[in-house]
């Protein structure tokens, strides 16, 4: 930058010669310089202001234009979706453990009407009433003409029905797409699946919500759009069908009013088959009954909700408990002289028997109430309670059914000695067949607790240990002897060593006391006893075998033959080979082969 000197020599000399004050020149120049500096500063400031103004103006213009565009355009979804991010609006399917479909969805249509668009309401009403018998022509016509703008007519239409409605040809009849839940196997596994219904309904779609069973329990999982893969159950459809078949026939033969069966894998707790009869069609779920006992409704799941006194099947828990505590061995001698007088109570044997002196193993084999009571008294109430709780007999089954948590076993609130005695042979305490199956599974798998599940599991599950392997082994051998020498002789199946315990319990009368001629019989079994893999519990409600002049109701005559037939049917389906004679210890199999 060229600086103008404040006192230029030439002008100062001229001014001096002219006699002027040279300071004036300096002041003049100083003033000019300051003016110049001021102008420059102002220019710069103005430039900056202008720049900022333009910048803000543009920014606001852009925002304004964008807002205008957004406000004036139609909303549209982005059309480009990345592959792999697919979501499904459908409810997930339910399959069995092999992937066979148990529940799926079907596209169908709902029928609704816009009465104001209707040409001939009278004709439409008569035609519709002819198509659908449940509709009333007069009522329909009244509703078509009372000034409403919208009404539902039917929730589901089959394609044929839809075509027929199309053929009526009235513009006031409209169709809304629907996803319908379909259970292709009908009655099969109805208590597990439960059923589904429509939740919030709109013209374009309706939500499908679970109503009962696993559909309701897993509702969130099934509706989750991010998890469209099917829900695999632990149920095997083939086994389920075979068990349902045999149990249904058995129920008829034994004149029972209800039956339940649970087939469980003892290592994983997976329920392979869960049957409760009578059953229902989940496609067309019946309404709950309002009068009488809800336990008689086909909707009632006897295997999970049915809390029964399961009788002598509990005796093995008493024996296992005593062996675990080291109080007895299977060969310990027990005084089983009947009757046992305890305070004001008399404990008798079934049909007035008196077994006298016997071993623990024989107590189980003959199902001696007195013998079990003696063992229980040695164990004591507290240890008995703790052992039964550890087997899961005091808590609702943790299976994935919405009904399960409500079915709490009935446990006496106080535990005096008489309760210790009755509990030891399964009276005064009530549990569901599912509870019983889980407890037997703990014996069968070598003494670890099993938590039953209806979902397919990968690999074995190691539960908490409730008894030693030796105890479990002794208990299995005792159960085997019940079949070879005791009350469950019908369960001798050639090639398949079965062990189990029968139970016959009088049904409690709602008016108090017990019925004389109504029983619940059960057979809890495990097989094959040389390496137990499966547990089967069969329970019959009010059976009676009337083939002889006097009806027979004991479990050995009712539940055991049915259970044996179930086992005969399912073992080949599960790929269990018959055991060769030398694989099983001693004379037990010889008795089977006969």
């Amino acid at each position, binding site marked *: 930058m060229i600086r103008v000197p404040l006192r230029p020599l030439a002008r100062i000399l001229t001014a001096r010669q002219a006699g002027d004050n040279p300071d004036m020149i300096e002041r003049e120049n100083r003033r000019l310089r300051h003016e110049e500096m001021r102008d420059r500063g102002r220019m710069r400031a103005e430039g900056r202001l202008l720049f900022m103004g333009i910048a803000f103006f543009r920014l606001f213009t852009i925002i304004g234009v964008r807002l205008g565009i957004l406000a004036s355009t139609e909303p549209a979804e982005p059309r480009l979706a990345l592959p792999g991010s697919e979501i499904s609006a459908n409810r997930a399917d339910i399959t069995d453990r092999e992937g066979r479909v148990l529940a*799926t969805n079907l596209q169908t249509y709902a029928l609704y009407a816009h009465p104001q668009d209707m040409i001939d309401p009278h004709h439409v009403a008569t035609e519709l009433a002819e198509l659908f018998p449940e509709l009333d022509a007069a009522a329909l016509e009244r509703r078509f003409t009372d000034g409403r703008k919208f009404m539902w007519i039917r929730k589901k239409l089959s394609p044929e029905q839809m075509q027929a409605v199309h053929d009526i040809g009235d513009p006031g009849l409209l169709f809304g797409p629907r996803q319908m839940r*379909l259970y292709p*196997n009908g009655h099969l596994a109805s208590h597990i699946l439960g059923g589904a219904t429509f939740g919030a309904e709109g013209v374009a779609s309706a939500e499908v919500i679970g109503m009962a069973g696993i559909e309701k329990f897993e509702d969130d999982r099934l509706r989750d759009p991010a998890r469209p893969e099917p829900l695999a159950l632990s149920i095997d459809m083939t086994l389920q069908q075979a068990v349902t078949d045999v149990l249904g026939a058995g129920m008829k033969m034994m004149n029972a009013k209800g039956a339940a069966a649970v087939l469980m894998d003892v290592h994983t707790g997976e329920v392979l088959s869960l049957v409760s009869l009578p059953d229902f069609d989940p496609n067309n779920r019946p309404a709950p009954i309002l009068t009488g006992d809800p336990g008689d409704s086909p909707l009632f799941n006897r295997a999970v909700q049915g809390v029964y006194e399961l009788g002598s099947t509990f005796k093995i828990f008493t024996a296992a408990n005593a062996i675990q505590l080291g109080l007895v061995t299977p060969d310990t001698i027990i005084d089983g002289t009947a009757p046992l007088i305890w305070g004001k109570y008399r404990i008798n044997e079934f049909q007035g028997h008196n077994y006298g002196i016997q071993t623990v193993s024989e107590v189980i084999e003959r199902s001696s109430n007195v013998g079990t009571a003696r063992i229980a008294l040695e164990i004591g109430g507290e240890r008995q309670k703790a052992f039964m709780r550890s087997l899961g007999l005091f808590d609702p089954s943790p299976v994935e059914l919405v009904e399960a948590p409500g079915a709490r076993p009935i446990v006496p609130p106080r535990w005096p000695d008489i309760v210790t005695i009755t509990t030891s042979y399964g009276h005064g305490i009530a549990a569901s067949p599912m509870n019983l199956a889980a407890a037997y599974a703990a014996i069968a798998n070598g003494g670890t607790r099993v938590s039953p599940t209806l979902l397919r599991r990968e690999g074995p599950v190691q539960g908490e240990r409730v008894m030693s392997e030796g105890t479990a082994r002794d208990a299995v051998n005792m159960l085997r002897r019940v079949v070879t020498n005791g009350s469950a002789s019908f369960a001798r199946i050639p*090639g398949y060593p079965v062990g189990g315990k029968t139970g016959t319990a009088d049904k409690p009368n709602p008016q108090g006391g017990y019925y004389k001629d109504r029983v619940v019989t059960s057979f809890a079994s495990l097989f094959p006893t040389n390496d137990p893999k499966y547990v089967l519990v069969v329970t019959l409600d009010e059976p009676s075998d009337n083939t002889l002049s006097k009806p027979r109701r004991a479990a050995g005559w009712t539940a055991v033959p049915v259970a044996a037939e179930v086992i005969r049917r399912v073992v080949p389906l599960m790929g269990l080979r018959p055991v060769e004679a030398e694989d099983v210890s001693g004379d037990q199999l010889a008795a089977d082969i006969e």
Partner: protein
Amino acid sequence: MRPVLYVASFLGVMLLAFWAYRENYTTQTMLKDVSALNREIAQMRSTLAMQRAEWAYLNRPERLQQLVNANFDRLQLLPMTADQFGSPEQVTYPPEPLFGLTIDPNAAQDELIP
């Protein structure tokens, strides 16, 4: 020199504008194609679901049982039993080669079964 630069950049802008125009329309066509394909996929999925449901319905155990009963004369199907398990000894294997000689199985069969 400068006019050439101007003309060149103008032409460049024109070219880019043309390219952008074409790209825009290609993209829109592709989006249309994709949505058409997606619609087709959805359609096929629902058809597949329908077929699966129908398959499951036609294969329901109850119906199979009825079919088995109806065709019992011809098929004679009965529930599986435990004695249907075979043992490996029951399987017929090809004959052992004689004297360690490797014989062509087809030729061997010709010799054994004249």
